[in-house]
């Protein structure tokens, strides 16, 4: 039993992991054929993963409704939203338009999903403004540096800000706000981003190797 549950899955992961890694460095026909097959498998498996996720989502919200858990009313909207897209999708065979005319799926996308998603994101603007007023406090030297950087970036990102800068400081003959933004974006920002990217990449390489060589086994579950 241990062989089936533990050693065979570990062996599959190791062999597939090493072979896939090798395809990056070996541009032979066999390696391309292997990668091509693997890609097709991946698409099929991800289709099943979608289905699994969908069933899990619906079951979770169904249980919430049946048990009348906190916020169960919102779970009804999960089902309503799901049906509002899936039923038109089935009726219109997945097509958004037919000869330039919107299908029922196209209609539900344009007049339900589109405005709802936009509204959700647009609401953020109000909270950002409110938070900017209430929480952006310059209480330390670090906060002051952050404020100056944010101030320049916000100001330089819009034409009105550029005009204001030129009007107030243009006479000094000092660099324009665009030059300052360019410097912030190309020097400190890139340095920080590069550091983060290198850190993430090293972490990803280490985790991948741990999975390939069977050191990291959490993906196999507890049994």
């Amino acid at each position: 039993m241990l062989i089936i549950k533990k050693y065979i899955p570990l062996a599959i992961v190791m062999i597939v992991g090493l072979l896939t890694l090798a395809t990056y460095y070996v541009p032979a026909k066999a390696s391309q054929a292997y990668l091509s097959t693997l890609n097709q498998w991946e698409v099929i498996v991800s289709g099943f993963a979608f289905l699994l996720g969908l069933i899990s989502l619906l079951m979770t919200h169904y249980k919430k409704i049946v048990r009348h858990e906190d916020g169960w009313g919102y779970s009804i909207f999960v089902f309503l939203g799901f049906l509002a897209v899936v039923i038109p999708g089935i009726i219109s065979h997945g097509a958004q338009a037919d000869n330039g005319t919107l299908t029922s799926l196209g209609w539900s996308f344009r007049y339900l999903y589109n405005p709802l998603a936009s509204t959700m994101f647009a609401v953020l603007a109000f909270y950002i403004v409110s938070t900017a007023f209430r929480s952006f406090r310059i209480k330390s030297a670090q906060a002051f540096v952050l404020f100056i950087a944010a101030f320049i970036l916000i100001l330089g990102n819009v034409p009105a800000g550029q005009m204001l800068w030129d009007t107030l400081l243009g006479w000094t003959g000092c660099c324009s706000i665009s030059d300052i933004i360019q410097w912030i974006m190309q020097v400190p920002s890139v340095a920080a981003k590069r550091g983060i990217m290198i850190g993430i990449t090293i972490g990803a390489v280490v985790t991948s190797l741990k999975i390939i060589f069977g050191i990291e086994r959490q993906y196999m579950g507890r049994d």
Partner: protein
Amino acid sequence: MKDRLRRFLNIDRRWLFLLLSVVMIWPIIHPSGIAGRTTQQSVKDFYDFIENLKENDFVILGVDYDPSIKPELQPQAVAALRHLFRRNVRVCILTFISGAPGLIEEIKQTVPQEAGKEYGKDYVVMAYNPNYMAAMTQMSIDFYKAYEKDAEGNTVKGMPVMKGINTYRDMAGVVEITGTGMLDAWVAYVGDKYNVPIIGGTTAISQLGYGPYLQNRQLLGLLGGMRGGSEYETLTGRKDKATSGIDALNLSHMLVIILILTSNIILLVLKEKN
């Protein structure tokens, strides 16, 4: 005086919401038309890349965003497609985001008609593919194994627009408009590995993160947010949604600055009085 300042600092946030609403709606009723004075180098590079494409070149246009960030990115995608059509470049539109096919449909219903372009001959729209990594890798081996059918269910192989296209080697580049990490994926899995030129468009908030790619020329051009879109529209000579959106952005950005300054000045005054 002190009490008044304190009360102002604790103002009901609904007043701020109302103020922002006015600031956002006013420019829509009365556009100011204040244009940007400068153009970012990454926007110029984006423009130059498309401008230097040859007639009949083949380019992938990735439309990878959903309606939540449509106001920021759709103008970029529309402007890029118009520019590509003006250069008589063949375009293959594809997406890995489930919310994008409807937005592609919106673009498809307007831009090709005004440019006089024909579906299947000058451009094609591929079906949504949920697995970007597999599709990107597969296109390096055989495009038609990644995309057998287009979004309308037609067989892709044999379409005039696909003539001579089998792998990335036959393409002139990728234009990726996204608010997700898809641009990173194009750079890592396609640009670097197969030497494919990549340019991109992204949200203002994501723009800073692409600095390392731009410095290394892994990314040959970048449009950042509405400002990048409006600068690009100016370069292409056709001002549209990004340029008109800049007005609302102008005032709302200024409002944020004023609010931050005001609250900090009040705090300073209160501190000194204490």
